[in-house]
């Protein structure tokens, strides 16, 4: 029931959008498939290039997952370090912001210089893109511990470490997952942007590489298929992270209840 209630409106919108797309491609863009291929063309291109699409998607997935994992570990550890004292926060947080505001495209050449034209460089771009929301939300969560509970832990002589594991970290989980959800999509975008700029060491490459190829060949239908694959990849990533968050928080947090 819940599934039907959630899925039906979304599917109706998807059908309407595809219908409108088909209408456009059959009228205004009739005979201009290189600008807007019809849904049938895109489906055909998908079938024809299935092996390349799957390979590229898996390759991008791998880079995004690695970048994301790195961002989770360093983001949560970094936020935990900064949450230890105001001084540490004041000294380090501006650099976390800088990492977010520096244009990745602009430092990509530097990354290539340091790490080479390979997957590792792509992973690093994905990592940089997804780090900040995790750091920022984790810090917010670690700082919003209830004062009464903090006093309770202090009264019963809980060490800083015990308070962290039993109070502050679990209390921060809803915030941490808010950050993780944002970063899930960003890590995929980061991987694709990275591939755009850096390419890949091996022949096949991920979706970013394939998108550049398809553009060069004016193979717009395949380009569409790849964009759709990239979008779905980010979307599925987001859904999986959301589901894990709901599973962990379902017993106690409002955000994971209802429906």
């Amino acid at each position, binding site marked *: 029931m819940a599934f039907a209630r959630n899925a039906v409106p979304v599917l109706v919108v998807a059908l309407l959008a595809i219908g409108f797309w088909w209408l456009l491609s059959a009228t205004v863009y009739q005979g201009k498939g290189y600008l807007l291929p019809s849904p049938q063309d895109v489906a055909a291109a998908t079938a024809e290039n299935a092996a390349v699409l799957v390979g590229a998607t898996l390759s991008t997935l791998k880079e995004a997952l690695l970048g994301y994992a790195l961002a989770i570990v360093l983001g949560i550890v970094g936020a935990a370090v900064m949450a230890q004292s105001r001084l540490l926060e004041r000294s380090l947080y501006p650099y976390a912001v800088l990492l977010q505001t520096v244009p990745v495209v602009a430092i990509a050449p530097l990354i290539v210089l340091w790490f080479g034209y390979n997957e590792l460089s792509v992973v690093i771009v994905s990592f940089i893109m997804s780090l900040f929301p995790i750091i920022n939300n984790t810090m917010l969560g670690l700082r919003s511990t209830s004062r009464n509970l903090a006093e*309770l832990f202090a009264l019963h002589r809980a060490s800083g470490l015990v308070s962290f594991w039993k109070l502050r970290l679990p209390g921060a989980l809803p915030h941490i997952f808010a950050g993780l959800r944002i970063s899930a999509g960003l890590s995929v975008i980061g991987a694709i942007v990275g591939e755009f700029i850096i390419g890949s060491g091996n022949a096949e490459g991920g979706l970013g590489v394939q998108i550049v190829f398809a553009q060069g060949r004016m193979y717009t239908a395949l380009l569409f298929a790849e964009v759709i694959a990239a979008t779905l990849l980010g979307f599925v990533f987001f859904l999986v992270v959301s589901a894990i968050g709901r599973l962990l928080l379902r017993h*106690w947090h409002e955000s994971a209840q209802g429906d």
Partner: protein
Amino acid sequence: MSGQGVAIGLEGVSKRFGAGRDEGLQALGTVDLALRPGEFVSIVGPSGCGKSTLLRIMAGLVAPSTGRCTRPDGIATAFVFQEAALLPWRTVERNAQLLMELEGHAPADYRARAAEALALVGLAGFEKSYPHQLSGGMRMRLSLARALALRPGLLLLDEPLAAVDELTRDVLQEELSSLWRQAGFTGVLVTHNVHEAVYLSNRVVVMSPRPGRVLDVIEVPFEFPRQPELRASAGFAALTGQVTAVLRGQHRAEASA
């Protein structure tokens, strides 16, 4: 008074928050108070008079600016907040075990004592529930159970019943009173509810507006166990009237000054 006969003693205790040229905020005037072991004392006073600060000084959560707070060694102290202050991600039983866990008791030990305390407050059967599934009154019972499981010699209560509805409050007052008689701890209750203070206490400490000082300490002569009907009696009305008069008198003096 010294040593044996005192559960907790305050001598010349005052508290000023903030410092420097603006002299900070004098939250609490000078307070002297000695609590006898096993007695139940309520502290009433207008909002902002520093009664919660006084309780936090007794708990050791806040250091007094002047004076000292003395407590015999080896007395377990537990604190109950106005909000139940539970860990929402822990089940009822895991919440009840928390304080003993923090104090380093053995798991077998704290499991048994938490179960006992839950039964005592009438939460047996809810062990696996989560706090959000409980009513406000049940959450407060759980907060009490968590404190009682520690078998405290001193139980400090900071307006624990201010947030529950009136009917629940009456019931919880009776339960709290009977828990106190069973467990035998020294109780200090901060409240703005004069009826609650008189109903539960051996003595009621009445405080002035900020910076709070002790205006009067009123003995409550009624025998324990007290029955709910006591609330309707003339003697009870006279005593609550007396406490209210002390509170009001000070207000009037402040207003005309």
